[in-house]
């Protein structure tokens, strides 16, 4: 597929777009899970993200595109350079958005013996897999609920540790694998295992728009894009550029956003009211609110930010309450309304 549908041309689905942008500004929010109806542009949005991301600086020749500056963990080679004080050359590369296709085998995900060199030269060399490619970027799994169990286990492990370890017959490699896990799927195809669910910082429910005007607009834009991808992309270039700028600004601005005690308290109150498990919910809530504030150019996190990010940050962390017929999103909304006085 040569052309990607422009991000800003996606009709509606504000929560999904926002969640993706929040994760783009602050990857530490954790992954984004997009669950919902068919044909709502889930994968379109994620794949369109690649074009929105500002380029990043990476060490030339490094297979894990390590960051030349900063304190983030780097691969063994880069660490050696760093310790030795050898200056490294770096260049700007696009942030990787890596697709994990269905049917991928474990060896391609974690990396394995370099087939070509092993067979032709008899050399034992490591061929990095998708986790290496996704380092410092995004790993996208469409139909995440159909992923094979052993791959899910593996991803959970790596997503938690930020490091991929391959041990096989003297092939001993560990490399950083910090990525934003983005998953999408349709709940009708099967539920997600709770452990994996928990790995996603934000969870978004997407629904097909119900009003006629938006529906017509979705079909019309899709059709226009298919008829003339270049012209359509050109038409949306400005809007896409605006989104890109907001990400760049948000990233730059993120460190300056303050989180007042009042906001921390609010977040804690909200999580307590909803009875979410563990501290992860609060942490994600605060981070997501901060990222949103940065995206909007606000100086500090306020109620409006918390309100906006509470549903995606918390809805998948609620214990199932059978007494309540309402969906988890509604319950979050209700708690928010109660706490913030609507």
């Amino acid at each position, binding site marked *: *597929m040569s052309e990607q549908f422009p991000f800003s041309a996606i009709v509606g689905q504000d929560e999904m777009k926002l969640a993706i942008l929040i994760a783009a500004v602050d990857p530490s929010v954790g992954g984004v899970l997009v669950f919902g*109806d*068919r*044909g*709502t542009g889930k*994968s379109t949005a994620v794949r369109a993200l690649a074009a929105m991301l500002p380029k990043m600086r990476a060490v030339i020749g490094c297979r894990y595109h390590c960051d030349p500056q900063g304190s983030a963990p780097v691969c063994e080679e880069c660490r050696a350079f760093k310790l030795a004080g050898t200056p490294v050359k770096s260049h700007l590369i696009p942030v990787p958005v890596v*697709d994990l*296709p*269905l*049917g*991928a*085998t*474990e*060896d*391609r*995900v974690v990396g*394995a*013996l*370099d*087939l*070509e060199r*092993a*067979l*032709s*030269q*008899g*050399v034992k060399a490591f*061929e990095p*897999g*998708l986790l290496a490619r996704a380092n410092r970027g995004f790993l996208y799994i*469409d*139909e995440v*609920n*159909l992923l*094979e*169990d*052993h791959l899910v286990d593996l991803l959970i492990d790596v997503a938690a540790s930020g490091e991929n370890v391959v041990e*096989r*017959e003297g092939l001993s490699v560990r490399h950083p694998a910090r990525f934003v896990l983005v998953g999408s799927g*349709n709940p*009708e*195809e*099967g*539920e997600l295992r709770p452990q994996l669910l928990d790995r996603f910082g934000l969870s978004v429910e997407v629904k*097909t*728009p119900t009003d*006629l005007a938006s*529906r*017509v607009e*979705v*079909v*019309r834009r*899709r*059709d226009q894009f*298919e*008829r003339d991808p270049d012209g359509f992309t050109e038409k949306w270039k400005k809007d896409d550029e605006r989104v890109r700028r907001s990400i760049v600004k948000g990233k730059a601005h993120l460190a300056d956003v303050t989180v007042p005690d009042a906001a921390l308290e609010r977040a804690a109150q909200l999580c307590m009211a909803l009875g979410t498990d563990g501290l992860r919910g609060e942490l994600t809530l605060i981070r997501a609110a901060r990222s949103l504030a940065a995206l909007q150019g606000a100086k500090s996190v306020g109620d409006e930010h918390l309100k906006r990010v509470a549903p995606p940050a918390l809805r998948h962390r609620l214990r*199932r309450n*059978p*007494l309540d*017929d309402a969906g988890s999103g509604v319950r979050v909304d209700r708690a928010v309304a109660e706490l913030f006085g609507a």
Partner: protein
Amino acid sequence: MTPAASTATAQELRWRCAQPALSIAARHAAALFAVDPVGTGGAVIRGLPGPSRDGWLRHLAQLLPEGTPMRRVPLHINDERLLGGLDLAATLQAGRPVAQQGVLTLADGGIVLLAMAERLPPSTAARVAAVLDTQEVALERDGLATRHATRFGVVALDEGLADDEHVAPALLDRLAFSVDLHPVLVDAAGGPEDDLALEDDLFSLAGWSAADIASARALLPQVEAAAETVQALVSTAVALGVVSLRAPLLALRVARASAALDGRLRVSDDDAALAAALVLAPRATQVPTAPSEPEPNDDTDQPQSPEPEAQSEPPPEDTSEPPPPDDQDESADEPEAEPSVADLEDRVLDAARAAIPAGLLAALMSGCDRRASAQVSGRAGAVQQGRKRGRPSGARRGEPRSGARLNVIETLRAAAPWQKIRHAEAERLRPIHAKPGARALVQVRRDDFHVTRYKQRSATTTLFVVDASGSSALNRLAEAKGAVELLLADCYVRRDQVAVLAFRGRGAELLLPPTRSLVRAKRSLAGLPGGGGTPLASGIDAAAALAASIKRRGETPIVVLLTDGRGNIARDGSPGRVRAAEDVLLAARQFREAGLRALLIDTSPQPQPSSRQLADQMGASYLPLPHAGSAALSQAVSLAARAASGPTAVAR
């Protein structure tokens, strides 16, 4: 093969006449699909293998340009064949990785045929759907990372007969056409369609030629559609309750193909109407309300008389295909008088409404769309992986321990790349005085071991929840016990499990944890005491909890609740009908929320409306069995338990 040989015997002729003719819709679908296989995604062909299906496929093949690849995907295809992978033999021989392409890559520019598509695992359907979306095969397998562009249309051969057998929704959503080839006998004809069909040679199936298709293909990129057309198609989809936005988009492409096939550069209202009839009508989940039109009332009255569930049976001719309005307009040959958007919308909607299959219409009318339920319930959850029995589903790294079986091919595949390295190492480590030449041909190490993973349809656990309270105990408990025993024998044959919960006095008690043991079950049932109050809410709670834990184990629970439907003990064990009723309502709603399959058997001497209500609240099927013995009860349960899956799931 010349089926249309001119010298046909009388018997042959008779046979021909008994053969179903391809309906106009089926031919239209084939032609429009041939014009734009990639854009329209493909077609679901419903019907058993037979002359009409072969006829349709042959018709399609004739319309497609010569040399168009048609690749058949067998049901249990593995990823290596579907997507591609490492060609082990060639790799070892060549001493370098040699990739082999999968069926989806080889089908580029052609058609992928999915055999027995109703049984296609969701995982395979998702792979095909992903390739349809991205138009490339992204391969990350066996040390290979390649991308192959591939564009194809899909023909899914759906042989589903039962209500719960359907093509995976992910695939259905992406295929524009749905062609029903269930036999419609020619001599039962009467509709205008069959008259037309009879005019044609039954076997030539012509109408359009390959040349027509080729010129339509050339024209297609320039065909324009007005904004009103888009609007009309989208609003028709809404009126029919079609949620996915892929449907109107596919309809739009079909309308374009229709215009191109007709040699026009602009989508006409007829094209839109046709597209709505072909693409949107089969997806209808509701019958559109038509203001100020008597016609749909006729539609609604007629199909209700045939049994609503006879979806797969040939519908009576007169109701199945009312004359499409677009045909009428065509014949009237009216000049196009600048119709307003509203007019166009009405027209497209009419066309679609007229084309809703009669069986589906009846099902929609009766409020029980089995199709939708099957989609919602999703068979994905009912399959468990990693067991030691069942159908092989790939391999994973691991040692052949605790019964796991070694997968030799995968093990060799894993070992293959290392051979050169290992031989070199072995050579180096060989003691100097050891004899050379004793080296193994293929060096396999423990790291290479791969074991086969199996996929198995998970076991069903039938959970009996027996009301053992005083009111029930008197008349029903013995029968219930007998029925459970009989069912147990039945379940034993099917390798299903059974569990028994009883509730009486102040709460519920698990008499029999899920088991396959007939003996244990009998023993625990024999000791089932009766009498006391009716803590119905607690019974339902306990059933929901146990069913949830069964579900978590990867098995499919079916709850069979035997009660007279009147609780008199609240959840906390306190007596009182009012509190108890409130609790029952809550418990029933929770139960429903959990989305469990259930069957409520009303055991009271007189069927109670309250029981029926309870069944509704629980999302359970309802079965009154006032005077039935154990045998009848058992039979009813085993029938109903299997049917119970549908309505429960609809509720969610």
